[in-house]
């Protein structure tokens, strides 16, 4: 019985440790911080006085995204449950939108489609091939 207690306890402890690590590694959401830091102009939309690149950099520095994409229209930050888009505002600051992952993907599909998802949720671009996929 003692051996089972030690062995079973050890097994369960390893399991709990892995579970905690997996949950913690997911990162946290910047939603609250964005709401506190920037002026809200509409539900889920905020205004920054900084440029889009600087604003995206600031948000990324505070809350590390799981991926980041840039294209001519703006900078897109991906978090476990959110898509944050930072779009330029004609040289006067930038507009931040905060959407759920699914809604953000659909809203900015022309910019992040294929990269953050695809048919069946399987990303179809940047999946290897050339020399830039090493390390």
């Amino acid at each position, binding site marked *: *019985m003692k051996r089972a*207690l030690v*062995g*079973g*306890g*050890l*097994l*369960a402890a390893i*399991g709990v440790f*892995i*579970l905690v690590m*997996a949950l913690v*590694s*997911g990162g946290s959401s910047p939603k609250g911080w964005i709401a506190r830091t920037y002026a809200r102009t509409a539900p889920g939309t905020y205004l920054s006085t900084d*440029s*889009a*690149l600087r604003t*995206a*950099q600031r948000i*990324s520095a505070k809350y590390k995204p*799981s991926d*980041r*994409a*840039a*294209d*001519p*229209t*703006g*900078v897109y930050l*991906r978090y*476990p*449950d959110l898509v944050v888009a930072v*779009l330029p*505002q*004609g*040289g006067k600051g930038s507009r931040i939108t905060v959407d759920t*992952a699914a809604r953000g*993907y659909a809203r900015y*599909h*022309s910019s992040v*489609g*294929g990269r*953050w*998802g*695809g*048919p*069946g*949720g*399987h990303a179809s*671009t*940047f*999946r*290897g*091939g*050339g*020399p*830039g*996929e*090493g*390390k």
Partner: protein
Amino acid sequence: MSESKDRGGAIGCGIIILIFAAVFGVPFLWNMYDNGVFDGKQPDPATAPIFGPSEAGRLVERLDTAARAQGICYGWVIDSGRSARIPVVTPSYGGTFSPQPTTAPSARPVPNPSAPPAPGTSQRSAVPAPPSAPNPNASPRSAARPRATAVPRPASPPPTVPPEVTRELSEPGVEFGSNLGVGVDPRQAPARCPQWAILTAQYSYSSIDKEWTSGSVSVQDNLGAGNDLRLSNLDRLGLTSADLVGDNATGRLADAIGAVPLLLAEEGRARPVAPAAGAVPAGDEISSSRGAGFYVFTTIAIVLIAGGAVWIAVAAVRSRKGSS
């Protein structure tokens, strides 16, 4: 008794090996699957184009959107450091998209190619050069495209391609493209692209490791102002030199190329590009941001916790039965 102990020890060792295999092996294999390693025949890194059909098509589409909005042609020239000639990829475009010759830019006035350049500009097409030969790397698709008619061509002489551009683009290991398509450099079409900005990337390639070891990027343009964008500007994208050769280096490079119009807009040298609204194809959905590893590790954790609990419960039942 001793035989039973040995058997117990062997089972214990087996369980430990299984746990290690599950914790380290399964996520590793899953990650390989997620990165497309099992998708089929892998291209040779020594000769594979940097951007595959989807990536190249996507870049052309995004740059086309920017070119239409800003009236500036955008392109990329990548010296991948490889000594082989890299085949020109045939891009795959979404929907009905097909790159069109740049029409008269609507966002900015089109300078007359025969007129002297505006103060501060350095029109490369002004450099005298012999008429350019057809680009051997141009894809059949780009060759088949109709020519622009919106920009009036000067009566004489027709714009020419500077020889240094032709030389640069014909070097082995060099890949290029633009909003006009893959294998088409804006400087090759000065009449269609009176204004251009091109991201140039230079990589060092290790033929032993078959990967890039270092890389740098810069942006050339003929927009005047005399302040070509440099890597210091690209730092604003959150990019570092390490990113250019690290995980998903191709994606980071595409980010740098795609962000040039954004950088110009932020500097007030072009108008911002609005995100395009479009329907999402059926079944196209966002992948899980947590990655496969999260689910694999969570499953392993639950199995371990359940296994430990069952072990203790079985031992407790046996112990109770034995004592009674």
